[in-house]
C-alpha cells in the first residue's frame, strides 16, 4: 500500500510539475506550476481559476480579478481521496494580512459571522473543486480541513489570499521556475535514454503501416532486464490492430529454458513517446501449468511505438521484461 501511495503521488507530481510542453518544446516559462497545499501531512496541488474572466490563467493564492473563482486541489496523497474535506472562506479580519496563521483563525470568536462560504465535509476522490463568486475586492482566508477515514484525525490548512490584488512579488515564481528547470533537466536526461530505445523500435517497425503482425511478435523472444527470464507472447488478434480488445498468451521460461509455472505477473505499459499508459488494465486470468499465462484485456488505442512491461515475481528477486512493438 505504501508503494502504491508513493507511485500515485509520484505520477501526479511528475504529471503536474513537468507538464508536457516542458518536455517537448523546452518552454518552461508557463510551467511555474508549483503551488502545493499542506493539510497536515496530506498534500495537494492547489490552484485557482477565474475561467470567465481570465480563461486558463491559474493563480496560486491571490486572485487578481473578481468573478466566479474555481478552487482546485489535486491530491498528491491518496489519503485525501478517502478523507472528509470541508472548505471555509472567511473575511480576513485578523489584521495580519497575508501573514495570518492557524492560531490567528482559532482566536476568532465567531467564525460564522465572517464566513463567506462554507462547504460541509464531503468525500471526493482524486480532486476537490469548489466554485465561489467574488464580487468585491478584499482580503480573505481559506480554511481546509481534512478528517482521515481511519479514526477521523483532523488536519487543517489555512491560506490567506486577496481578491483584486495585483502587486504580487515575483520571487516565488523565480524560485519555482528554477526548481522546475532542475527537475526537468533531470527527467529529460532520463527520458532521452528511454527515447533512444524507442527510436530503434520505431525504425524496426516502420514498414508495418497496417499494424504489427501478431505472428511476428510471437516469433520474438524477450529477455528480462536482469536476464533471469525469457518471454514469448502470442496475441490472439491477427493482424494486431488498434482499438480492439483481445487476449495474449505469455510463455515464461528461465534463462536456461525451464518453464516457470507459478510466477505472479503484473502488466503495465504505454507509449513512451506520448507519456501515456495502456487504455485498459490487463491482467493474468489463467495459467496452463506449463509456463503459459493468459492475459486478458489488452487494447492499444493509437498507432505508433508501444511497450508492454511485465513484472515477473517468480519466487526469487523480481524482474521485468519490456516488450516493444509498433502498430
Amino acid at each position: 500500500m505504501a508503494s502504491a501511495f508513493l507511485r500515485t503521488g509520484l505520477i501526479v507530481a511528475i504529471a503536474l510539475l513537468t507538464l508536457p510542453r516542458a518536455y517537448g518544446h523546452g518552454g518552461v516559462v508557463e510551467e511555474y506550476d508549483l503551488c502545493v497545499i499542506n493539510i497536515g501531512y496530506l498534500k495537494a496541488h492547489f490552484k485557482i481559476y477565474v475561467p470567465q474572466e481570465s480563461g486558463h490563467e491559474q493563480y496560486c493564492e491571490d486572485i487578481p480579478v473578481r468573478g466566479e473563482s474555481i478552487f482546485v486541489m489535486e491530491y498528491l496523497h491518496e489519503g485525501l481521496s478517502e478523507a472528509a474535506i470541508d472548505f471555509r472562506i472567511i473575511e480576513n479580519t485578523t489584521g495580519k494580512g497575508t501573514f495570518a496563521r492557524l492560531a490567528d483563525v482559532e482566536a476568532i470568536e465567531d467564525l460564522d459571522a465572517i464566513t463567506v462560504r462554507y462547504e460541509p465535509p464531503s468525500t471526493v476522490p482524486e480532486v476537490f473543486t469548489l466554485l465561489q463568486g467574488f464580487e468585491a475586492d478584499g482580503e480573505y482566508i481559506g480554511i481546509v480541513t481534512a478528517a482521515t477515514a481511519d479514526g477521523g484525525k483532523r488536519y487543517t490548512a489555512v491560506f490567506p489570499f486577496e481578491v483584486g490584488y495585483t502587486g504580487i512579488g515575483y520571487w516565488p515564481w523565480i524560485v519555482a521556475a528554477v526548481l522546475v528547470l532542475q527537475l526537468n533537466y533531470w527527467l529529460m536526461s532520463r527520458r532521452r535514454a528511454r527515447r533512444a530505445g524507442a527510436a530503434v523500435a520505431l525504425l524496426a517497425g516502420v514498414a508495418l503501416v497496417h499494424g504489427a503482425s501478431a505472428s511476428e511478435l510471437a516469433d520474438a523472444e524477450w529477455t528480462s532486464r536482469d536476464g533471469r527470464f525469457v518471454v514469448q507472447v502470442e496475441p490472439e488478434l491477427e493482424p494486431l490492430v488498434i482499438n480492439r480488445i483481445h487476449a495474449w498468451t505469455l510463455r515464461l521460461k528461465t534463462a536456461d529454458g525451464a518453464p516457470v509455472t507459478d510466477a505472479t505477473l503484473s502488466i503495465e505499459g504505454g507509449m513512451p513517446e506520448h507519456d501515456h499508459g495502456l487504455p485498459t488494465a490487463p491482467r493474468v486470468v489463467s495459467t496452463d501449468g506449463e509456463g503459459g499465462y493468459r492475459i486478458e484485456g489488452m487494447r492499444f488505442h493509437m498507432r505508433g511505438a508501444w511497450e508492454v512491461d511485465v513484472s515477473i515475481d517468480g519466487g526469487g528477486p523480481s524482474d521485468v521484461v519490456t516488450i516493444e512493438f509498433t502498430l
Partner: protein
Amino acid sequence: MWQWLTPPTPWDEAELGAIASLSIDALPPLPPDPTNAVADDLAAAEFGHALFFEPRLSDNGMISCSTCHQPIRYFTDGLPRGVALGMSKRNTPTIVGSAYSPWMYWDGRRDSQWSQALAPLEDPNEHGTSRMRVLSLVASEPAYRERYEALFGGPPSLLEPAEIDRAFANIGKAIAAYERLLMPGRSKFDDYAAHLAAGGDYREQAYLDDDELHGLRLFMGKGRCTECHNGPLFTNNEFHNTGLLSLPGELPDRGRSDGRRLVEADPFNCLGAFNDDPGRACPELRYVRTGVELIGATRTPSLRNIAHTAPYQSKGQHATLAEVIQHYDVAPLAMIGHNEAEPLGLKPWERDRIEAFLDTLSAPPATDPGWLQAPPAERWRR
C-alpha cells in the same frame, strides 16, 4: 510563407498506410452484441425505431429520443447542450457508428447501446419519465404490446422489481437494435482513399482539392489528430483530457474519473443481471483502466460529419471547428488533471487546411431513408 504556396507532394508508404487505415473500407463488419439477444433482429429494430420517435415516452408527452438525436442533423441537435424537459449536462453526441464503441456518453458511464438508451428516459432534464410509465405505455398500446410479446416471450411484467428492470432493459435492447442500423456513409475522403488504393493519381482534384490534401497531411502529421481520431470512425473511443474550460456557474467536468465509477455501479452494465450473454466475458468492463490520467477526460468523438454537427466539445464550449483547432494548437493547461495535448505551432493557413479536410468527412448515414424518419403512425397506433 513559401510553404503556403507549395503544392501537395506525393504520399510516402507510411502515409498511404495511414490513409487506408482511416478509410471506411477499413471498417470491419459490425461485431455482434452478445449482451443483447435481439441486437440483430429486424422486428426488434422496427420496434426500436417506433420507440425512438415516440414522444409519449416522456413526462410531458413531447420528448422522444429524436428530440435531441435529430436524423436531419446526423442525430445531433445543433445546441451546446441538449434541451428537452430541462438542459442536459453535456453536448448531444451522434448515434451514427456508436455501435462500434465499447463506451457510451462523454464519460463512458454506460457500456452498451441498450443500457445507454435507458438513462435519458429517467433523467429529469431529458424525458423525465419512469420505467413503470414506459412499460405501462408498451403494455397498453396494442401494437407495442404485440411486438414486445413476440420478441421477449410475454407481456412486460409490472409486479416484481427485478422483472420490471428486465422489461425496462428489453426496451433499451429494442432501441439498440434500431440504433445498430445507423452506420456512417461513404464520404469524399473515402472515395479518395479508394482511388489511391487503386493506384490513382494522388492529386486528382475530383476527389480532394489541394487545400484538403494539405489538410489531410497535417491531420495525420503535424496536427497529431490521428493520435486520438484514428481508425475508420476517426475515434479510438478512449478518454482524454484536453484542457477545456468549465462553463459559467459550473465546476470543471470530472469526466471519465466519475464515469468509470458510474459504469461499474450501473445495474444495467455488462456484468449485471440483464446481459443476455451467460458467458459474461465483458473484457472492457473487467479490465477497465483507473487512475489519475482519467481526471477530466472525455471520450474522443468520431469526426465523420463533424462539419455539420456544431457546436463542439463535451459541453459545447466551441462554436466552430476553427475554435476547436485553435484550442488544440494552443493546448492550454487543464483546470483539473493533465491536458494530454501539446502545443502544435500551426500556422493560420495550416489550421484552415485541417478544417478544409474535416469538411471532406461528411456523408449521409448508410441507412435506408425509411429508418431516418418516424415510422408511419398508423402502423404503431390503433
